[in-house]
């Protein structure tokens, strides 16, 4: 039979997809007109019709920048078509674009901070006030007390880095991501060739839950299934990733690193393998203590299984051992990232390479800057900065550290005493402390390398890069470094990377962190471990503002206004906890609650699996006051190489 396939209309590759049709309806016409009549009499909204076309766009939700096509009805964007190569976060981008709580004018704080009480002001007024604050700080010789925090690396973040650095401050930071953590630990971001891999061993990296480059991993995963490539997940919770993997290797919470060391031990001692990388000698001397049997006692994984994993890793042609625990939010100690990455170097995998970001060059610091840049040292990460430094001004670009950092409370206290500028489309928990909130545009409203914006930017909002440019142009002495008229001039200049070199095993870090970890895991006062998990679409919390995320949440996560935490049945019995019981989770730092218990053997004993992404105080009417935010009570011990708290495992008790 003849076939005319709609897929041809949706194909993204191959240029414009402006198939158009007239809104005349042939089939089903009587019903549809009848429905409209009924809707009219029942006072229902009737969506307006218009010319249909498909426009090519780029999803800017994550650095991956997937190509998508957007179905337009007149001027309205009504559907994102990903043609099986997007991700759930991108599918919510229309809810971001048309969010009723979007900011459409600069806001100025009125009243006490942290309450999100604002009054609208004009762009000119806001930019003038912000830049004169910066000029004032420079005049008083405190250049390095201006800091910035970006959500992730993109055009506007590079511009903001450039501005802060040119003023004379090294304190331009990023929220911790897979890339920042691996860059801190192994000296570069890791590039995995998942497509050609023939054996994947993931150490708590929840590859299918927003980890890394989500859209392309989904594709690779689908190919692994077709090519029968083995994918093994080591984790203390049977997460979505573990359930989709060929095998889930359950472990005691937080002991991924011991599995990696056990495997390394077997490879070095039994297979005579090794690595030429720096400090391998000192590192392998420590790994030498973790025979598969010793690792087994610590992790609960049978020694035979550890040997099996090692053998499989060494047998494979293009094996990949994946480091970086978590999904959208990542937290791993640097010793753990090094150990897992180290496995790749030991088995000489060609599927993992390192690279680093390179910001665009040519910035000329202002006259007074050199001294500060030479004297003040950049912290290894934003958590360390919040803990150890004070600042007079913080510029927040899309980030939400008050909500996402375990140092959120400490940060909030510092924000109350400083001048805060937030550039973002929706007010979040951090923006609640801002002196100014500058509205930025979202995915389909900006010009990209792929072409023009899909929709007209919402009135009043501008590109975050333009907001930075406008500020920079009014800072005395900076004009020369910021001559561009608009962010569009920078599209081709930004987003560059280069190869990275110089991986070292850093034996001393391993020694220190293993000692700390063993101490924490042995803490008898807090006998359980909190392990965060992520719900689909909600991710690490950004997704909760988009109400269609709620359509996906099942009763295992959030139901009738209550957040559910998963506890192993035996463990629950031991602690006298029944299904559905209301609980509070207590750590050294404090407590959160109440949450409800869901007893299931899909988590390891002594583990409390808590969904992240809930418990926002300010983040649109859809995300506010739903559940609790476990980061408030999580482990805040800062890793020296990443400058970030390793919060993924926290010792807790329940009441």
């Amino acid at each position: 039979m003849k076939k005319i396939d709609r897929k041809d209309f949706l194909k993204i590759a191959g240029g414009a997809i402006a198939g158009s049709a007239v809104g005349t309806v042939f089939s089903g016409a009587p019903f549809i007109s009848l429905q409209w009549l009924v809707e009219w009499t029942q006072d229902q909204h009737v969506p307006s019709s218009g010319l249909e076309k498909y426009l090519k766009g780029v999803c800017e939700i994550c650095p991956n920048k997937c190509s998508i096509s957007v179905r337009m009805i007149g001027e309205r964007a009504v559907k994102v078509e990903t043609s099986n190569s997007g991700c759930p976060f991108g599918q919510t981008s229309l809810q971001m674009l048309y969010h009723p709580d979007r900011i459409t004018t600069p806001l100025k704080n009125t009243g006490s901070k942290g309450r999100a009480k604002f009054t609208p002001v004009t762009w000119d007024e806001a930019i003038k006030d912000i830049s004169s604050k910066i000029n004032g700080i420079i005049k008083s010789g405190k250049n390095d007390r201006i800091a910035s925090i970006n959500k992730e690396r993109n055009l506007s973040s590079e511009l903001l880095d450039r501005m802060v650095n040119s003023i004379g401050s090294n304190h331009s930071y990023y929220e911790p991501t897979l890339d920042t953590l691996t860059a801190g630990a192994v000296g570069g971001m890791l590039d995995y060739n998942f497509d050609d891999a023939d054996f994947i061993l993931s150490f708590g990296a929840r590859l299918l839950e927003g980890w890394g480059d989500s859209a392309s991993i989904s594709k690779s995963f689908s190919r692994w299934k077709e090519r029968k490539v083995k994918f093994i997940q080591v984790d203390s919770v049977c997460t979505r990733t573990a359930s989709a993997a060929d095998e889930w290797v359950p472990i005691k919470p937080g002991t991924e690193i011991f599995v990696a060391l056990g495997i390394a031990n077997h490879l070095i001692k039994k297979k005579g393998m090794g690595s030429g990388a720096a400090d391998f000698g000192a590192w392998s001397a420590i790994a030498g203590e973790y025979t598969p049997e010793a690792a087994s006692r610590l992790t609960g994984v049978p020694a035979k299984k550890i040997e099996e994993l090692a053998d499989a890793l060494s047998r494979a042609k293009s094996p990949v051992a994946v480091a970086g625990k978590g999904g959208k939010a990542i937290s791993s100690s640097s010793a753990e990232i090094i150990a897992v990455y180290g496995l790749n170097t030991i088995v000489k995998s060609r599927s993992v390479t390192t690279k680093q970001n390179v910001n665009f060059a040519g910035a000329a610091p202002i006259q007074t800057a050199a001294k500060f840049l030479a004297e003040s040292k950049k912290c290894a990460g934003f958590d360390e900065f919040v803990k150890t430094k004070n600042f007079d001004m913080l510029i927040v670009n899309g980030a939400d550290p008050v909500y996402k950092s375990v140092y959120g409370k400490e940060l909030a206290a510092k924000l109350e005493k400083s001048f805060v500028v937030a550039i973002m489309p929706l007010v979040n928990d951090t923006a609640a402390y801002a002196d100014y909130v500058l509205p930025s545009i979202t995915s389909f409203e900006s010009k990209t390398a792929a072409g023009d914006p899909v929709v007209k930017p919402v009135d009043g909002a501008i590109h975050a890069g333009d907001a930075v440019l406008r500020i920079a142009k009014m800072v005395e002495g900076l004009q020369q470094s910021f001559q561009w008229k608009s962010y569009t001039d920078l599209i081709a200049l930004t987003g560059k990377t280069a190869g990275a070199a110089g991986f070292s095993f850093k034996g001393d870090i391993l020694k220190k962190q293993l000692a700390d970890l063993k101490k924490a895991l042995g803490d008898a006062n807090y006998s359980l471990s909190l392990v965060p998990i992520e719900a689909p679409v909600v991710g690490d919390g950004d997704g909760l503002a988009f109400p269609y995320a709620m359509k996906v949440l099942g009763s295992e996560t959030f139901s009738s206004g209550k957040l559910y935490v998963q506890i192993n049945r035996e463990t629950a019995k031991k602690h006298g906890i029944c299904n559905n019981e209301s609980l509070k989770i207590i750590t050294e730092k404090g407590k959160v609650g109440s949450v409800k218990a869901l007893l299931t053997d899909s988590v390891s004993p002594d583990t409390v699996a808590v969904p992240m992404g809930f418990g926002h105080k300010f983040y649109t009417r859809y995300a506010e006051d739903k559940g609790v935010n476990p980061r408030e009570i999580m482990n805040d011990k800062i890793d020296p190489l990443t400058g970030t708290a390793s919060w993924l495992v926290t010792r807790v008790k329940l009441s």
Partner: protein
Amino acid sequence: MMKDMENKMKRRWGMAIDLDKCTGCGECAVSCAQENNLPIFEDDSDIPKKMTYLDVMRITNDRDAKFPDVKVAFIPKMCQQCEGNDPKNPQPPCVSVCPVVATDTGDDGVVSQIWSRCIGCRYCQVSCPYEARVFNWWKPKYEGSFKKSLNPDVSIASRGTIQKCTFCSHIWKKERDKAVMKGELDINAVLYTPACVSACPTGAMVFGDLNDPKSEVSRLARDNRAFRLVHTIDQKKPDEQKKFRAIKNFPNPKVYYLSSKQWIRDLMRFK
């Protein structure tokens, strides 16, 4: 003779979902919500009352197994587009009970639902074995600018009506209209892809014509990993099946699931 020809020409839309590839990511459900103008509430966490067509169900065998042998999987479940025992005269459990013919089976096998006809008696909801039908307890809401992303091809329901997945049949209508505009005369030649299927990032969902033995969905429906949701008749021997079909009204869904995991198939049997 003529009738046979007609029957041959018609599509019989079906779906196959490969659970080995499904990661439970929920993109299908979000895509469905966006395509079908599902209402937007500030607190949508009352799960039995939540208006959603596609439920990504988390299933586990932890009643039968203990740690560490417990397994988890995800089953995206929408209306299974049942056809009853006779494909030529489809009788899904939900259709015959509707007093106002708000739900019916089309000649493409899709079970339609016309919200504006629905009087809210909820008979169909009760008779659906797959809990695929949802009732609008509240007037569907779309706050402010959210209205801008509403799809004009799908009408908005009123409070007190039943809604469900229609295999996105409005997309097929639209594609046929387009083909006609281009001078195409045989509208049944037009294929289409529902919103959930075109979104799935792993390609776990496949949609197509079960009447076409060469289509991928037909091939997958015959795969030895294929099964249907708690459909007991599938487990019976052929002659027994025949006997049962004659006396009983089985839902006989057109949505097939595929899994290589025995424990999932075990769950699909009543013990």
